Structure formats: C-alpha cells, structure tokens
C-alpha cells in the first residue's frame, strides 16, 4: 500500500493512472471502441473523447456515472449503456475522474479516444470479488456457499503449506496438522467425510490448474506423507476461495464432492506506474513445548516394572517358569542357563535419548515480489526462499520458488496470459516407523532408557529392534531426502469476440519431478553387517497433469432489470505418474554412495495413467439486483470407470434473494444486508481410487526359477477382481444460508446449514479371502453428512487511530454411514470400523470398565451385558470417533496508530484420539527390553485396594495383551493459541526520507498455548496420513512452539 507523489508520474508516457487503492483492486483500462468522429459546437476543439464505463466484474455498462476532467468544470454522465462522449478544449493527455455511488472513485489518464474504463464496486464485503469456478462474482450476487480467505492474513503462520494455514479461518473447513515436521501432509476436510475409500480431500485448483494433491512419496516414512501443496509459496497467493455447496461445486462435477479450494495468485496491474517492490524477511526459532513431551521411566523404574511383571506372570501361569530367582534384572553374577543377570534395578543407569533428537529449530523466510504494468502488459514476479528446520533432527524443509504471472494485450480484443510457478523443494526427512525401519522419533522415544547409547568398545549400541539414535540424526550415516522440481502453469488466450461474448482457451500443466534418496552407511542396521555394506535407494517419480480447457462466456443485460451470464466449456485432462527405482547394496566403503559402485543392484519401474473429459455449462440470471438464480451442469467421463458407467452427469441449482433490497428493508439503518441462499445439486468423486480399479488384473511380479540354476523367471498371478459396473460416487447436497450485515456491515454474519447424501460410495468391499482376493472396489455404501456453520465478522471499534475487528467461526458436522453391505474395518489392527448407523471409522474397541481393586485385573464389558477378564471378538464395541462435535477458530485484529496486534485461536471439541503410543509404552513391562515405559505406568495396581485404571502388570490374561483396549482412547478436544503477532509500521514521515514505502516490523509467536486433556504430545497428532488411519497417535513430533521476527518493506 503506497501513495505515489502526485504530479510526478501523471503525464509520463505509460503511467496514466494514479493509484490510491488497496493492492487487491485491479483496474483495467482498455482501448476498445472504434474511433467515431463527431461534430461539435465548441469553437475551440482540442480533443473529442468517446468511451464506455463498465462494471469490472459483470462487464456491463453502468448508467449515470459522472466523468469529470480534472482541473476543469467539465462533467458528463453516461447513458443507459454506460457510454459517454464529450468534446473539450483540453489536449490529450488529461486526467479523468470517474465517480459513481457504490463504486470506487477512479482516475484515468485519457490519451486518445475511445476509452473503456472498468469500475470496481467500492470495497465492502458485498462488493468483494469472489472467485468461482471458471469465473468471478461479486459477493452480493453469489448464490453458493463460498468462503473467501485473504491470503495476507494466513500466510504468516510459519507452516510450509497454504492448506495448513487455513486452520481456523474458514467455517466448515477442518484442518488437521498431523505432525510437527515441516512439509508433511495435512488433513483438509470440507464439510465432513463422505467417502470411505475414495479420497476425502478437496479439489485444489490453482489459477485454473487442477493440481496434484497426492503425495508422490514412495519411501518408507512410517506412514507419513509429504504434502505436495507445500511446494507452493503462500506468499504468491492473492486469495483462497473454498467452495462448499452444490451450486458452487457442481461446475467441477466429478471431482467437486469434497469441496473445491480455488487458489488465485497475485497478478500485475495495468497502468500501475511505478513498479512496486515488496520484501519480506523473517527469522524465527521453534522448539517442542517441554511440558508436552513424553515422560519416560528411569532405568531403575523400568527394571523394577519388568521384574514385577516377570514374577506376576510366573504366579499367573506356573508353566512359564518365571520366578523371583530367575527375574531378568538380577545380579550379573547370577548366571542361569548360561545367561547372566542384567544387574539389579537400582544398578541401572538412565539414558536420555529424546534430548538427542529434539532441537531448537530455525525458520527463515525471504520473499520478494515485484508488481508492475504498462498499458499493454502487466506482471507480478514473486521470488521466495524458505528454510524450516524440524524440531526433530535432522528434518528440514527448504523451498525456493519463482512465480511469474504475465498478461499482455495483443490488441483490443485478444489477451494472452501466463501463470507460471517454478518450485524447488528439498526435504531432509525423518522416518516415522518402528521396528527395523527405525523411526527417528521412536528410536529415541521407544528405546528402553536403561540401555546405554554406546557399547563398552565405543561402538554405537542398539536395542533389540532400534537403530542407535546418533546414527539416525547424523546425515552422514543415515540420509533420507527428497528433491522436487515442480512447475505449475497455465497459459491462456482470451478473445473478446463481441461485447459481452468472450472465448477463453487454456493449456495447463502441473509437472513434478520428484527424486527421493536414501542412504544407510555400514554402521547402520540396514546398511551394516551381515547385510551387504551400505544401502542406497534412488526413486525418480514424475507426475504430469496436462489439461486443456475452452470456455465461452456471454454477459448480457436483457433490460434494465434483468441480467444473464452464460458459460459453456469443455475440459480434457490426463494424469500420468511414472516411477523408477533403483537400489544398490554392498559398497566398497562409505565414500562410494552412487549405485554404480554397488555390488548388488536392483531396479523397479511402474506407471499409471488416467484421463478425464468434461463438458460444462452455467447460467446466471439476476432480477433487480435482488433475485439471483444459478444453474450448473457438468458431464464428466473418466477412464477409471467401467465402459458401462464411464460418464457421470452432475447438475446443480441455486437461488438467492437479497431481502435487503426489498422496500421494507431498503431504508433500514440497522440491517445493511440480508440475503437468503438456497442450493441443491450433486457432485461426484473418483479421487484416490486406483487408475485401473474397474479391470480384472494379473500382475507380473511373481517370478520363480525353473530349476536351481535358472535364476528367477517371469511369473504372473491374479491381482484384482474386475468390476465393469464401477461408477461414480455421487454426493447430493442441499444448502440453505443466510448472510446478514448489521450496522453498515460492521457486524457480518454468515450462517449455513447443509445436508449431504452420498450414494454409490466407492469402497474396498471386504470379500471372503477364500476368493483369493481380500477386497474389491465397489459402489456399495451410502453416507450422510449434515451440519451447520456460522461465521461472524465484526468491526468492534473503528476510529482514526484505533481499530479492533474480530472473526469467529464454528462448524458442526454429523456423519453417518447409512447403508453398508457389511461392516468394514481398517488396516491390520482394526482400531476403526465403519458400520451402518455410526460415523465413518468409529473406534472399535474392547471396553475396559475398571481395574478390579481386589485382583488388579482389567474388567471388560461383554456383549451380553456381563463383565469379566476374558473377551472374545464379539465383545468389541464402537466407542466414539475422531469427528469433533464442533470446531473452528477465532481471531482478533487490533491496530492502534502504527501498531497492530493479531491473535488466532483454533479449537475443536468432542473428538477422540486413540493413544496408540501409550498402548505401546504402557505395556506393563511385558515388552521388557524392546520398548521404553511411560512414567504413567507407575500408576499400576500393586496391592489389594488400589484404585487405578492401570492394571496389575502381567503378560498373562488380558491386562496388557489387548491392543484395542478402550483405556487408550482419549478425549482429543483442544483450544490452541495458534498465532499471536505484534507489528509496528514505521511512520510514513520516517520511511519516505529513506525512499521506502511501508515498513512493518513484527514479532510472531506460534502455538504459544494449548489447553487439552489429551495425554499425548499433541491432540492433532496422527501416525499416518491415511484417511482411515488417522485419529491414531503413534507418536509424532508435536506442533512446535515458535517465535519469529520479521520485516515487511515495500518501495
């Protein structure tokens, strides 16, 4: 935001426009109409000017606009078509001041006739331009449920990807940050989960390009996935629109059912005059909140618990032959069966590994943007560099980005535009898994504390199943990294065929060259003896999405009361993913790290492709600026479905009524806007299913030799049952909404209620494995989501020096599986189950009622109502789910003179988290030397009369050998101070002296406060990014607490 000195640029050749407006207002001035000479009556004629004033959004002429030549008294008004002409004694160039009630005042420099001037409605919530599918609308004419998020507000949150920054900002949008490691996947759900096995992620469209949101990661990261959206630099984003209801999403047809997130990046401005530079620099530090990290038992406590369990188990089951005499932690000299003791509990040392893997991480961010424009060309250039270290060593995320958006008018009818983003990301990664794959966190957290870090001879010690932590955090020894080079761009040509009739054709590309590497040197488990020495893997994945779209739009004022807009278009898109992988094992020494040096080399390669073809249309009709109607239809054909059901048709209809415009409200002082919105329609989903899901397939990866010397020869085996009837999952949505503005929109309220019903849900129907298959993809379920959303925006105080505004949003979604052939459980451990009448993926557990104070044994509820220590599978029950009862966020923005203060809270209530990590680490000492033990284990039952929910430690019976014990299910509700920032903008009197525009300095704190009953590190943690596995906390780094200092300088 910057004021340019008057006069200096006014008459320069290109800077024809004086600009005083907000950054986001874009003004287009275009030479358009043929020159028509006309006679005049004035004796002194230096110029004749003819032109038209049109609405920037609707492109319709505006009648009654005043056009005033500055410095004169000459004023004319436009006619009913928005046209004007006048003759003046002034010579070109001269400045016109154009004013109209409800529109932003605009000055343009006329340097020839005719001219076309677009006028923007004045900045208020109602006139805000909202980007919709294949177009834009003003807020007041919007029919659908659409949330617009201003990127300037969200981009400061120091997480790598813009989707994570949406948390708490938009009603109906639930964002879950699975892990505190930068660049990892985030869960985004718009209005609940409709799908069981197809993806529940929304569709992302960036500048018209359907971008890939599926992680290309192939490495074993313990279920963690990288976020493809983290490639995109949030600083390049102008606005984010979330489309939620049928009339908004139906234009995206088969891919819109989970909501659509439209991202618009910054563009230049024609006739901007002086080029604008904006520089943002920030530097910060992050670390894990020490109060939230796990507390482990000491070495002596660990040993004591293991001994106690040993003896108890021996009493429970004498055949185990476990007694106090042969307990594991007995004097070293006590050799039994040739095995010496491990030393008495009190002799054990305690080794802290968590402090070796957690660190204070640095976060650096630099962004430069250059915005400019002449009469024919406008551009915006963004260059950014981000380096975010993870609080878990050695995680690191680096992103360099370059963005160029360029528009150029070839002539008065044809505009060529180009949006280009080139991104390079580098991720130093950590493994998330357990066991041999030795997750970085788990190798520290799960390693028994009594086991030393180093052997007596100085070599790194390992536990029974874990890599040494120092071997993992040292990237010379263990190195897992990914480099991605990505291009997202859209090239389009726009032709104004006739007034109001516009043709647009575009070619979009999302190309990602994703290169993963792993190296384990000869000191590691994977790369060490007795394996061949050294292990290296290289994976090259390329994902190419190419799309081509044509649209034809027509805007027409039927008469002074009625307007229509018609849009038709087609779209084709192909998605092609190729993966090539090489592994080398057996290196001469650790200096050789290229596979060419390996003694054993293996390779793998695969490819998958899908195509989509679509036709779509939309009709908008408005009457008196009061009644709005919208009809949408899209037809999609997908290669993923059986030949019989390849095409799906998705219609949507919506209407809105601006009651405020009615006579009885028009003069109301209190009510400044009152609008009712209704919509219905359907959208589909096919995302996340296999590209060849409908086909019966045999796979070739089943080689076997013909004899001892032949070596493996090719073999085939059945891989998938065919389903030629496979078709679109279809979600029908009904939405009713109210927009209410009070006190000149000082208080603005959006309320929506919706009902979504999904039929033909795509799901991997469990089939009897006696078929030779475990599941087959079928349309076999019905799911409903219903919910309400409320967003309130208020300007509480607004004075010259002091402004206080607040935003609040809250959403509730109720999810239910309405019809299922049979209950479906997820993954091997089956913690979650979807069954008719309950929410998708409810926790399916054995309910531990209490611990018997007399015996110390866990007492479970049985299906028949009785209780006892034994269980069978029939006793499992659904016990809540991970869907919160309600969630949202609220923020306050306060500014006083040069100071500004912003806080953002996010919250959710009523969701459950299964603390899987607690189950592992509160195993009653049964895991002995293979896992550490949580301090909370000390609360175990020890003697008659003890009241506790932690049973007596024993390996016999069900105290500790039921994985799906409800004891580990916890309340995941939380409220979090996500961000708080304090900024100071230097007075213009100071900055102008050093020829700077605006200079803002700020300090930002993140995750400063968290209130939750959850006992794990972070209630948002989820072990795996798989949608049917989340809600299971397998221990991940918590979201870091951070502070950062930054400067924002424009010149």
């Amino acid at each position: 935001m910057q004021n340019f000195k008057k006069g200096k640029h006014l008459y320069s050749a290109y800077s024809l426009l004086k600009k005083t407006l907000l950054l986001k207002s874009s003004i287009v001035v275009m030479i358009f109409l043929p020159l028509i000479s006309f006679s005049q009556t004035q004796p002194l004629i230096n110029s004749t000017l003819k032109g038209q004033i049109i609405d920037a959004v609707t492109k319709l002429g505006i009648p009654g606009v005043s056009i005033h030549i500055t410095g004169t008294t000459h004023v004319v008004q436009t006619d009913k078509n928005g046209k004007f002409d006048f003759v003046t004694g002034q010579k070109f160039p001269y400045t016109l001041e154009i004013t109209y009630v409800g529109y932003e005042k605009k000055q343009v420099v006329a340097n020839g006739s005719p001219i076309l001037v677009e006028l923007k409605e004045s900045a208020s919530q109602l006139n805000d331009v909202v980007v919709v599918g294949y177009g834009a609308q003003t807020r007041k004419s919007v029919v659908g449920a659409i949330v617009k998020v201003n990127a300037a507000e969200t981009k400061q949150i120091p997480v790598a990807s813009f989707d994570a920054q949406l948390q708490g900002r938009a009603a109906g949008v639930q964002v879950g940050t699975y892990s505190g490691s930068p660049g990892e996947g985030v869960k985004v759900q718009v209005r609940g989960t409709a799908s069981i096995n197809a993806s529940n992620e929304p569709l992302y469209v960036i500048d018209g390009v359907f971008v890939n949101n599926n992680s290309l990661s192939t490495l074993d990261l313990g279920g963690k996935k990288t976020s493809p959206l983290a490639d995109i630099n949030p600083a390049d984003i102008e606005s984010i629109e979330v489309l939620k209801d049928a009339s908004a999403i139906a234009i995206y047809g088969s891919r819109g059912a989970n909501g659509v997130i439209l991202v618009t990046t910054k563009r230049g401005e024609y006739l901007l005059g002086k080029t604008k530079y904006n520089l943002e620099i920030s530097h910060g530090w992050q670390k894990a909140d020490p109060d939230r990290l796990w507390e482990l038992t000491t070495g002596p406590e660990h040993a004591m618990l293991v001994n106690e369990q040993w003896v108890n188990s021996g009493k429970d089951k004498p055949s185990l032959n476990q007694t106090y005499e042969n307990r594991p932690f007995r004097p070293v000299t006590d050799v039994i069966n040739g095995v010496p003791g491990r030393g008495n509990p009190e002799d054990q040392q305690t080794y802290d590994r968590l402090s070796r893997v957690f660190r204070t991480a640095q976060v650096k961010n630099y962004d430069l943007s250059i915005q400019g424009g002449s009469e024919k060309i406008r551009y915006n250039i963004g260059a950014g560099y981000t380096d975010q270290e993870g609080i878990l060593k050695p995680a690191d995320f680096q992103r360099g980005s370059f963005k160029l958006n360029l528009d150029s008018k070839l002539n008065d009818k044809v505009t060529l535009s180009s949006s280009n983003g080139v991104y390079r990301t580098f991720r130093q990664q950590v493994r998330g898994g357990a066991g041999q794959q030795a997750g970085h966190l788990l190798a520290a957290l799960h390693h028994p504390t009594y086991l030393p870090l180093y052997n007596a001879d100085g070599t790194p010690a390992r536990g029974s199943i874990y890599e040494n932590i120092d071997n993992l955090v040292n990237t010379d020894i263990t190195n897992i990294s990914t480099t991605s080079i990505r291009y997202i761009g859209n090239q389009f040509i726009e032709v104004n065929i006739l007034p109001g009739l516009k043709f647009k054709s575009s070619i979009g590309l999302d190309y990602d060259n994703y290169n993963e590497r792993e190296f384990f040197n000869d000191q590691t488990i994977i790369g060490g003896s007795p394996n061949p020495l050294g292990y290296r893997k290289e994976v090259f994945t390329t994902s190419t999405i190419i799309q081509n779209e044509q649209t034809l739009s027509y805007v027409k004022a039927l008469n002074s009361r009625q307007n229509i807009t018609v849009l038709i278009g087609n779209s084709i898109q192909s998605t092609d993913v190729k993966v090539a992988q090489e592994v080398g094992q057996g290196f001469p020494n650790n200096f050789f790290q290229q596979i060419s040096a390996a003694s054993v080399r293996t390779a793998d390669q695969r490819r998958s492709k899908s195509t989509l073809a679509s036709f779509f249309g939309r009709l908008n009709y408005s009457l008196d600026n009061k009644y709005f109607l919208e009809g949408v239809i899209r037809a999609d054909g997908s290669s993923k479905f059986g030949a019989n059901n390849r095409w799906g048709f998705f219609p949507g209809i919506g209407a809105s009524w601006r009651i405020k415009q009615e006579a009885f409200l028009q003069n109301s002082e209190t009510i400044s806007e009152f609008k009712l919105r209704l919509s219905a329609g359907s959208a589909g989903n096919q995302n996340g299913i296999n590209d060849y899901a409908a086909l019966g397939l045999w796979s070739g990866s089943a080689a076997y030799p013909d004899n001892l010397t032949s070596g493996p020869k090719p073999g085939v085996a059945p891989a998938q049952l065919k389903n030629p009837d496979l078709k679109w999952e279809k979600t029908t949505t009904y939405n009713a909404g109210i927009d209410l503005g009070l006190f000149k929109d000082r208080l603005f309220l959006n309320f929506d209620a919706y009902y979504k019903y999904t039929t033909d849900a795509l799901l991997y129907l469990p089939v009897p494995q006696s078929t030779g298959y475990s599941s087959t993809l079928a349309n076999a379920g019905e799911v409903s989501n219903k919910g309400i959303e409320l967003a309130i925006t208020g300007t509480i105080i607004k004075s010259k020096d002091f402004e206080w505004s607040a935003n609040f949003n809250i959403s509730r979604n109720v999810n239910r599986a309405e019809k299922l052939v049979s209950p479906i459980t997820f993954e091997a451990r089956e913690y979650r189950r979807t069954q008719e009448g309950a929410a998708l993926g409810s926790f399916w557990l054995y309910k531990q009622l209490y611990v018997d104070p007399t015996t110390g044994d866990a007492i479970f509820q049985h299906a028949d109502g009785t209780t006892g220590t034994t269980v069978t599978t029939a006793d499992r029950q659904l016990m809540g789910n991970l869907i919160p009862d309600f969630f949202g966020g609220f923020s306050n923005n306060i500014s006083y003179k040069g100071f500004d203060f912003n806080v953002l809270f996010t919250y959710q209530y009523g969701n459950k988290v299964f603390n899987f990590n607690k189950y592992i680490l509160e195993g009653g000492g049964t895991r002995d030397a293979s896992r550490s033990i949580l301090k909370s284990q000390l609360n175990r039952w020890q003697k008659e009369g003890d009241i506790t929910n932690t049973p007596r430690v024993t390996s016999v019976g069900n105290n500790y050998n039921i994985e799906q014990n409800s004891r580990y299910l916890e309340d995941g509700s939380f409220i979090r101070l996500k961000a708080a920032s304090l900024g100071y903008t230097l007075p213009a009197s100071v900055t102008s002296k050093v020829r700077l525009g605006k200079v803002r300095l700020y300090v930002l704190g993140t995750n400063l406060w968290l209130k939750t009953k959850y006992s794990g590190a972070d209630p948002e943690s989820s072990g795996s990014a798989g949608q049917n596995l989340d809600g299971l906390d397998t221990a991940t780094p918590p979201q870091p607490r951070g502070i950062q200092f930054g400067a924002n300088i424009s010149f």
Partner: protein
Amino acid sequence: MNTKNKTLLFLLLISSSLFSCKKYLEVSPYDTIPDETTIYDRSSAEAAVRGAYRGLASLNYGSAFQNTILQSGGDIKSLNNAQTDLNVINYDLRSDIAFLSTYWGNFYNTINRTNHIIEKVPLVTDNKLGNDLKNQLLGEAYAIRALSYFDLARVFGNVQIFLTPTNVVADKLGVKQSTQAEVFAQVLEDLNKAEPLLPTTIVRNRITRSTAVALRARLYLYQKKYTEAEADINTVLANPGYKLIKPFNLAAGTSESVLELSYSVNDVNAGYAQWNTSNRALEPKAVIHNLLNDPAVGGDRKILSVKNAAGQFIGGIYPTNTSAGYIIRTAELFLNRAEARVLKTVPDLSGAIADINAVRVRSSVPEISASLNKDEVLLAIENERRVEFALEPFRWFDLVRTGRAPAVLNLNDPNKYIFPIPAGEIIADPSLVQNPGYGRN
C-alpha cells in the same frame, strides 16, 4: 475470421472432441494385464505356474507364518514383544488378531492361483506346450494346491474347499466348511492326481514326483496311515538323489533337500530378517540353544544357534536374504519313516531306531540304544525332531499331531490346537462358523 466463423470453429472443436472422447478415455494399464490374456500359450502357462510357486514361497511361508508357528512350538521367542506375541505364547488367540487373517488370505491366494492353472492349462493349445510339460505344470499346480490346503487345515482346522478359480465374489459365498479330515482327504486326492503327472527327475526347488510322494507321506502321518507313509518314504529314499550328508550343514541344493523354495533380491526370504540380521525378530530360547550346543543332543547342529559376543543367541538357518527356504528335508523323511514304523500295526522298532540313528550319526551325536521300547522310541523321535527342526515350523504341529501338547506345552484345551477363523472372514461370508472355543465370531 469473422465472429460467425469463429463460433462455428468453436462448435466444431467441441464436437470433434466429443468424438475423440471415447478413445481418449480408454487407458490400458501398464504394469498389469487384463484377466482375459493370462493363460493361453506355453510361456503364459509357465508364468502362471511360477506365480503359484511365488505364492507358496512368499505368501504361504512368509515370515510371519513361521514366526507364529515357531513361537507356538515353545522353543523360540519373539524379540518384538508385540502384544499379539503374548496371545500366541499364551495360546490365547482371538479371532480379530490381524495375522490370522493374513495367513488365511495368503493360503487362499495361492490356492486361487493353482485353480486358474488347473482350469485353464488343459485348454491351452500351443504346439510348443507338449503333453509332458502340460502334465508337469498341472501336476505342480495340484501339488501346490495340496500343500496349501494341508497347511490351511493344520492351522485353521475347518475350512472351505474351493477347486475352481474365482471370477466373481459370489463364486465363493455360502459354501459349508469341510472338517480337517475332509480337507486332508482332498489334499490326498490332489497329491494322487499330481503323482503320475509329474516327472521323475530331481529339481529341488520345484515339485517333482518324489516331492509329491514325500508330501503324501507327511500327510499320511496326520491321517494315521502309517503303512502307506512308510511305503511312500521307501520309494523316495530309494532314489540316490535323496540322502543325508555328513557333517551336518544347511541343506540348500544338496541331496538333503527334497523341496526348497527359492528367493531372490527382488523376492527376499523374509526368514532372513527374522533370524539373522542384527535386529532380528526371533531368538532361540536358552533351552533350545543349550540343547543344540550339547554334543550329545545337537552335535553339529549347534550351528543353528550361536551365542554372539553380546551374549545373544543368533539363529542360523538363512545365511542371506536370498537363501532357500526349506519345506521338506531328507532328514524329515527318515524321522517320518521312523514314526510310521513305530506306529504301524506291526511296529518295526529296530527300523525306526535305525532311521533315528541315521540322522544322529550324520549330526555327530551318539546313536540311541537299540533296546528302547515303543514309547521311548517315540520320545526319541520327538526329541530328535525338536533339535533337527529347531528353526523350522514343525514342533507346534508335531506336538499337536502326536497328542503331546498337554504334556509338553501344558496346553490341555484341544480347542486351542486349531486357530480361530478370522473374524473378518465370518463377516464377509456369514456361512463360516467359528471354531469351537473362540466365541461367536
């Protein structure tokens, strides 16, 4: 170009894209082939049979199956200490424990592969696929199916028998379970069919006639047909290609190997990681380690359990991740025949003792006395098998088969001799009935 023309051109573009749409939306898979083009000539038939072997090697005898059976046998302990390990060692399995479903699915997956071969190979007309080869491929498929059903019945007891490939799910719904004895009868039928089809050559990593006969002998012990078992083993051991070699060593590729399964860098022997890497999942318990390292019991077989510098017991059966996996070793034939000779109607104790001593001599341990009585010989067989197959999934099945589980494992509930039918299977096919003692589902 005027506007009208442009509009026409646009409409033309749209309509032409309509016509090309159909073709645009046909995308064939790259990594897989459609159902219809699987078994139609010699090389595709051979490839399908190799696929069945891969199922046998990498599914049926994948690491977890051996892990569970070894732990059930009582001499091997898991280092993972997963809670399901407690369920295994306490003989307290529940139907919702995930590995049960994995084993169940793996066996049936391999069975479905063989069913495709048995149905489709006879229909192939290809000059290059001569009768001998066709018979061989069919025989192998019958034998692999037999072995899969044999293990399925040993683990789960009452299972459904399917002898045709799955085309649609409904093919396999609503079929009553067969009893373990009925399944064993089906196994015998398959082996009887396989025997004449198979060649008489020796290919140790494929099934030939001797392999099928050796398998049948093992089955006969379960069916208590001891005379038949002895006769079959006599037939196999008459072939000089199968004999014991002194000193004891790992059998791969030698005359001690009757059937071994091959692995490669792409399809690794998962057993290697169970035993031999520095973060192994299984460990011989001290008791079996001490037996193996007792010169009078284990002898040369002490290489199966070695105490390392850190005092840990390292199981030594698969030297590399491409080492062969053993299904039948020549030593088993001797010990099987010993058992058959003791238990047949007219016991042949001296023959049995000779068989046991053949194994003991090759392992450099003293021979057992020729004067042992019947029960003593049976115990000697049991003890010999315990050390001979210390790291192979035998002991659990042996103790159950011989009725010794109560005495040795302190396991008195016979319901626990077979595992529960996986809960998910009962949901997917309600005609399945849970095994007794495991609740409703």
